[in-house]
């Protein structure tokens, strides 16, 4: 049997969901028998590949780059999983939404800066008007709330997907868990 092609993506989040994924510890070795990690902050691939079976998306959609990425990911992924509260609800990244981007840029690049204050217009992607949950931008197949979802939850979700059975997410995790 060929291995399932798994990708993980880090949009506007703290990488805590990826830390939780790494907390699978020795279970990662067993998982490696069944999956191939084709794209992730943890591997060196630069371009999101074609024909991905499962993508775990951490983080809210917050910048032009996130928007572009998540649309490409959707095109190239069979099962897209919103992993963690930022992807599912926009969570902490969404706390900027009530203030507007101008206030956020000023705070980050002018008010708290002593050397050459000013808003960058290259290398840093531009912010969208608000940080949004992934499913408001593209269709999502499975939602896994939690901040972060525990390693046990992620293990349960991946195994459910590998075995093709329905995952009862709310029995395992909740918002803010």
């Amino acid at each position, binding site marked *: 049997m060929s291995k399932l092609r798994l990708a993980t993506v880090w949009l506007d989040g703290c990488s805590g969901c990826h830390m939780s994924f790494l907390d699978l510890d020795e279970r990662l070795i067993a998982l490696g028998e069944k999956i191939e990690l084709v794209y992730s902050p943890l591997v060196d691939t630069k371009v999101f590949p074609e024909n991905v079976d499962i993508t775990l998306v951490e983080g809210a959609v917050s910048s032009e780059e996130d928007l572009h990425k998540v649309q490409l990911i959707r095109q190239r992924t069979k099962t897209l999983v919103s992993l963690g*509260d930022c992807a599912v*609800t926009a969570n902490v990244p*969404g706390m900027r939404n009530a203030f507007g981007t101008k206030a956020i840029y000023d705070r980050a690049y002018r008010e708290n800066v002593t050397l050459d204050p000013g808003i960058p217009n290259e290398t840093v992607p531009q912010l969208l008007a608000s940080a949004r949950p992934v499913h408001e931008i593209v269709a999502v197949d499975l939602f896994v709330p939690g901040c972060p979802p525990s390693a046990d939850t992620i293990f349960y979700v991946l195994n459910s997907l590998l075995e093709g059975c329905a995952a009862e997410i709310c029995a395992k995790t909740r918002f803010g868990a």
Partner: protein
Amino acid sequence: MNAAAGVKTLRIDERDFSARADETILEVARQNGIFIPTLCELKGLSEVGACRLCLVEVKNSNRLLPACVTRVEEGMEITTNSQRLERYRRSILELLFTERNHICSVCVSNGHCELQSLAQKLGMDHVHFPYRYPKAQVDASHPRFLVDHNRCILCSRCVRVCDEVEGAHTWDVKGRGINTQIISDLDQPWGSSETCTGCGKCVHVCPTGALSEKGRSVAEMMKRRQFLPYLTLMREDRE
């Protein structure tokens, strides 16, 4: 038991029950281990039917009825759970999450919140409606407590406990619809309230992290509600 109240017989979820005529559907359901979700209801306070989560189907009624304020009637046939009720309850919960900024992960009540646990219990793994992300205020002017309107679901438990149990009526409600907000005294900072006795009852009946004690960090705010049925019981005895 009040003899004039009489006994009513009714059916809930295909099971027969008898109940006093002055009891509500919710009371009878709870006494018999039937779960009906609630948020605004709290034993020891008056019922207002504000959250609408306890809506049930009653045979021959063309509308859904809130179980917390509907008295039992002879021959009632009640359904507490159906696909239609599940859909409505889930929608109500989701709308509560979109109307303010409920960020469970950074909330003082994380892990001890009735809204959060009900979402989990009803299987709400995401929200279908677009989030509003309104700009809501935090009032930390009181020396011991604070109110964070980002986390308020307008259940009005604080208003009722302050009026009915403490007798101060510091809290009330202003505005309508989406602009509704809890206010202290004449819509002034809580710390400047002349009626607030600082008893903290409002803080402890609040189902979410909207009202909390100062100095609590994430997940540290545990609500203690034991006082409420006790106080109510002692007052009933005196009458």
